[in-house]
Structure formats: structure tokens, C-alpha cells
């Protein structure tokens, strides 16, 4: 039984060298936090709390990861999520009748979510069109749309918060099924779907090809432009799902909500083994990285550490990860050369 497990781990480890350190890091972080907080970290209440906080961050990180695999980036995820949330909130508040029956309620909520998805798709199409067809570098496109989308949201709301969603809608962020919060289930399903798309579907393979060598990919008959267009639409839809969750969890929408999460998503992608130069990235790595980061933040908050210390620690962790990657890469290189030399001698 145990030997079987070790063998399995060995084989997983060999196949996933780029993220193999993460389970250990996760374990160490959890252990340190448990000890440092005198056990408060592992109490049921805090675990629930951790579970409640992860989905929005995880969904946004996935939205950041998809373009990163194609050697792009999407800086507009937060502002497009906010625009989506504001439009959904206006719809919910505008059409929700007093004392509506169960059927109407469900139809309206599904309608609001559908509207949100349409908005996200439109926002994603603009990004995807500019990156794929006009060939504007992704950093610049999404920098521009980040400013533009936030501006539009600001103009719609005139700076005010739209709050007090219908009770039924809030269930998405607060109710549980089988002990798991609904929005956690949403995240797990989305992560699973993304993992399947990434690692089992032709589109996923194209995504990685585009990320590692767009020219070669184009010559091998893949429509690179279409792949890129799809990429940014998917990214935007993921941000839209995050908006659905955030609207339910925070019961409000505004132009600048969640702006501090943008950096965390980049950090999570990096930590989770996504290569910002494109071509690499695993959903499992991202999920583990997210849990690690969330545990560190939460633990530091439990300890009453100032948030600026958290900011600095994240920065240090990022440098640490880069350094680790570099030395690991060098180790592989050395091994490869040794093997080559050994073969030559034979």
C-alpha cells in the first residue's frame, strides 16, 4: 500500500518536475502557520474561512494563467470583472420583483448570470481581437482595456457602490452543498474543466504551441489568431465567473473593487509554475500555489502581522521562487550534459 503510494508519487514527481516542490512547500507553510498561531490556524472555523476566500482568487488566477501560457498577460481581469459585476448588479436590482416566487427567482438569477457572461465575452473579444488580429502586444492591449473598462464602470456608477442584492442571489456566496460552499464547488468545477481543456483537448495543445513558438505553430496549420482570440475570451469569461462569485460574496459591486488582487494572481501563476514566456503551465500547480499563498496571508493575519509586511513577504517569495527555478534549471542542465558525456564515452 505505502510502497504503491511512493511509486505513484515517484512517477508523478518525474512527470511534473516543475511543480514537484509545491506539495512540500504547502506542507511546510501549513506546518509553520499551525505552530506559529498555536493551532488557531487549523480550527474548523478558520478552515471554513480559508475555503470561502479561495474561489474568487482562484478563478481570477486561472483568468491570468490562460493568456500567460500563450506568452501574453491579461491586466484587465479585475476591471472587466468589475464591469461585469456592475452590469449584473444593475440588472438584478432593476428587474427583481418584490416577493417573487421560486421559479421567477431562478429565471432572473440565471438571466443575470447569462447577461454577465455575454458582457465578459464582449470584453474578451475586444482584447482577443487586438492581440490576435491587430497584433498589439498583450501587455499594452490589456493595459489600455484595464484603464478603459474601469473608466466605463466609473462612468456608469458615477463612483457609487451598487449593493443589496436579492437574498436568493447571495446564496451563491454563502450556502453550502455537502459541507462545501457553493462558490468553492463552482471553482473546483471550473478548475477541472480548465485542466481538461489544457491537457486533453486540441485547443489546449495549440495554446501551449502558440506560447512556445507562434511562427512554427502557424506553419503547422494552426490558426494562431483564432487561438489567441479564444484565449482572451476564455480569460474574460473566467473573470466574469469570478465576478458572479464576488458579487454574491460581497453583496456589492463598484468600479475599483478587488484592485489589490491583480498582483496576487500574477504571483500565484508564477509560483504555480506557469512560465510568463509562454509554453508552460499546469492547473494543479496553480491550485497548490493559490492554497500556499492564501495560507501565508491568512496565517500572517491571524498573527496580527501588518499588511505591508505581507506585501514585502510576497515580493520576497517571488524572488525566492525565481531563484529556486534558476538553480533547479541549472541542475537539470548539468545532469543533461553529464548524460550526454556518458553517452559520448560509450
Amino acid at each position: 500500500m505505502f510502497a504503491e503510494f511512493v511509486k505513484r508519487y515517484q512517477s508523478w514527481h518525474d512527470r511534473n518536475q516543475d511543480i514537484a516542490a509545491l506539495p512540500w512547500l504547502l506542507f511546510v507553510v501549513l506546518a509553520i502557520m499551525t505552530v506559529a498561531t498555536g493551532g488557531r490556524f487549523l480550527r474548523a472555523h478558520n478552515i471554513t474561512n480559508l475555503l470561502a476566500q479561495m474561489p474568487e482568487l482562484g478563478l481570477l488566477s486561472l483568468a491570468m494563467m490562460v493568456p500567460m501560457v500563450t506568452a501574453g498577460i491579461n491586466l484587465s481581469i479585475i476591471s472587466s470583472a468589475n464591469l461585469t459585476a456592475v452590469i449584473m448588479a444593475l440588472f438584478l436590482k432593476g428587474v427583481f420583483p418584490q416577493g417573487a416566487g421560486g421559479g421567477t427567482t431562478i429565471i432572473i438569477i440565471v438571466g443575470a448570470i447569462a447577461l454577465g457572461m455575454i458582457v465578459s465575452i464582449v470584453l474578451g473579444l475586444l482584447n482577443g481581437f487586438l492581440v490576435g488580429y491587430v497584433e498589439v502586444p498583450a501587455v499594452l492591449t490589456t493595459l489600455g482595456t484595464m484603464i478603459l473598462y474601469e473608466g466605463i464602470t466609473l462612468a456608469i456608477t458615477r463612483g457609487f457602490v451598487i449593493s443589496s442584492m436579492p437574498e436568493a442571489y447571495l446564496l451563491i456566496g454563502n450556502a453550502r452543498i455537502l459541507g462545501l460552499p457553493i462558490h468553492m464547488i463552482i471553482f473546483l468545477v471550473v478548475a477541472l474543466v480548465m485542466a481538461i481543456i489544457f491537457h486533453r483537448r486540441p485547443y489546449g495543445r495549440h495554446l501551449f504551441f502558440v506560447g512556445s513558438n507562434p511562427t512554427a505553430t502557424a506553419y503547422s496549420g494552426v490558426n494562431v489568431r483564432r487561438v489567441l482570440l479564444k484565449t482572451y475570451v476564455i480569460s474574460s469569461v473566467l473573470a466574469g465567473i469570478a465576478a458572479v462569485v464576488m458579487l454574491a460574496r460581497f453583496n456589492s459591486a463598484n468600479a475599483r473593487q478587488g484592485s489589490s488582487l491583480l498582483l496576487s494572481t500574477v504571483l500565484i501563476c508564477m509560483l504555480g509554475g506557469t512560465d510568463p514566456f509562454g509554453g508552460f503551465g499546469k492547473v494543479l500547480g496553480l491550485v497548490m500555489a493559490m492554497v500556499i499563498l492564501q495560507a501565508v496571508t491568512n496565517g500572517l493575519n491571524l498573527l496580527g502581522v501588518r499588511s505591508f509586511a505581507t506585501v514585502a513577504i510576497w515580493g520576497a517569495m517571488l524572488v525566492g521562487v525565481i531563484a529556486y527555478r534558476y538553480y533547479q534549471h541549472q541542475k537539470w542542465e548539468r545532469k543533461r550534459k553529464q548524460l550526454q558525456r556518458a553517452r559520448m564515452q560509450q
Partner: protein
Amino acid sequence: MRKTLLIVVVLLAVFSLSTCSRGDDDAYEIVFIPKLVGIPWFTAMENGFEDYAAEIGDLKISVLGAPDTDPAAQARILEDAISQEPDAIVVVPNDTAVLEPIMARGREAGILMVSQEAPGIQNADMDIEFLIAERYGADMMELFVREAGSEGGYAIMVGGLTVTSHNQRADMAVKHQEENYPGLYQVTSRLEGSESVEDAQNRTLELAAAYDDLVGMIYIGSLGAIGGSQATKSLNRDDIAIVGGSVPSQAKSYLEEGSIDANYISNPYRIGRDSAYLVRHLLSGGTIADVGDLPEYGTPAIDGTVVTFHAPSEVTAENADMFGF
């Protein structure tokens, strides 16, 4: 090998910071969550909390806060604070609606949940209001009329267009003007930039150029008046009244030379002390009805769970030093 290196680094990073000193179990643990940390206003308020705690002896204050006024970030911090299971949490919400469900969870966990500056909050055991928006708006407008007269155009600048409390105060000031001073009117819609000297300065210069009928500016936010006064100074336009709410020690030299005409702000240090007193009163078995006299601001008005007193007062060149921040 490298793996252990990384682990050691993380270990060091965490342990060097886990200098939290827990212990003395008889003290009440209070977590204070301001809108954001790292600005003079909340630093002074923290000091008020801590000094009161040091005097009284059985309170332990810790501060948790986000580096910016992002409501989502604050929500996550409040969730973490609840997990810490202190005796009480005092939070100054960036967006009350965002925190409501979390406040409810904190109460379920048996923590005394106190809010500050959160009018209309549902899920707080007590809400402390040190500022009555109507009165703030009216006072601000009266100061403005004193300096600028009751005829002509003006503009209001807030810290950010998404800052609810600033928008409310601005609305009240406008309401007071519309009811009492029909000769005044706003030359343009609300502006943002009162938390940055540069923005306030640049927007004021542009407004002065664009509108000949501008008689003055009202800034809600702590750096607006500083920037505004620098703008009017460089234009040599003493006739444009600058009315704001800046940190007294910073505003003092501007008030002396008259480039800020009026400054109106609360004393966060004293608010901190009163808040600590109120929280301790409830923790030690008291009720809101019998809070009695506050150590700093006297007898508050009590309405259900809302405790209200009005702290803002005018800062002049003479009394600026007495604010202590």
C-alpha cells in the same frame, strides 16, 4: 538540497515575523481594522486606542489593515480577524454592504462586532458615529460661505469617486447650500483627487482657468486643501477660498499665511480613545444604554445600537498644535 534552501528561507521569513506576544489571558483582546493602514489619520486613531489601553491595563489592541481602500481586501482581512477569535473587533468599513455578511458571522462566533462610520449597518453590536454627515456638510458649507460669500460658483473634490463616506458628506454640503444659499452653484460635477497633493493642485489650477465665476473650493480628503492652496498661491488668486479637512500639523503653516482659508477635521486620537472606552464598557458587561460620559467627547446620543457624537471642529492656526497629529 535546493528545496531545503527554499524551505529554510521561508521558515526564516515567517519566524522572524511571528513575534506576536500572546499570553496574559485576563486581558480583553481587541482587533482594530481601519479602512487602510499607513496614513496619519488612522495612525493617530491607533495611538488613541493603544494609549487608552495602556492606561486602563486590561485591554490588548492589535491592528490589521489593508494597504489600500479596496473593500474586497478589507473583507478578507475581517474574515481572518474573526478566525483569530478575539473578544471584540472594531472595523471602519470601506463599503458597509460588503462587510454585512461577515459581520453576522463574527457575531455568531461570539465576538463583539463594533463598526465605526457605518451608518445603517445591520450586523453590528454597536456602531460608533463620530461624525454626523448632515452637520459635517452644513458646517463645511457655513465655513465656505464665511470665506467665499454666498454668491458664485464652487466645486467639491473628494478623495476618490468611489469613496462612499466622502460622497455622502459632499451630498450634505450641497443640500445645505441648495436650501440656504441659492446664490451659490456648482460649476462642475464632483472631482476626485483630494488624497493627492498633485492631483488637487492640478485640477484646481485647471478649474481656476476654466471658470471665471469660481469663488472657492471644498476639499473632502486630507491632502486636497494643501494642493488647492498651492495652486491659488501660484495663481496669486487670494479671492478663491480654499476650505478643506487636512491634518492640522500640516495645514498649520498654510493657515498662518492664509492660503488655506478654513480647515475642519475631527481629532482621530480622541476618537480612538472614546472608541476603546466604549468597547471596553460593553466587554465588561455594560450595555449601550448606560455608556455614560465618554472620556473625550462627553455624553453621546444613543439610538438603538448607534452611539453618536460629533467630533469635527474647526482648526485654526492658533489651535492646530492642540490636535496632536
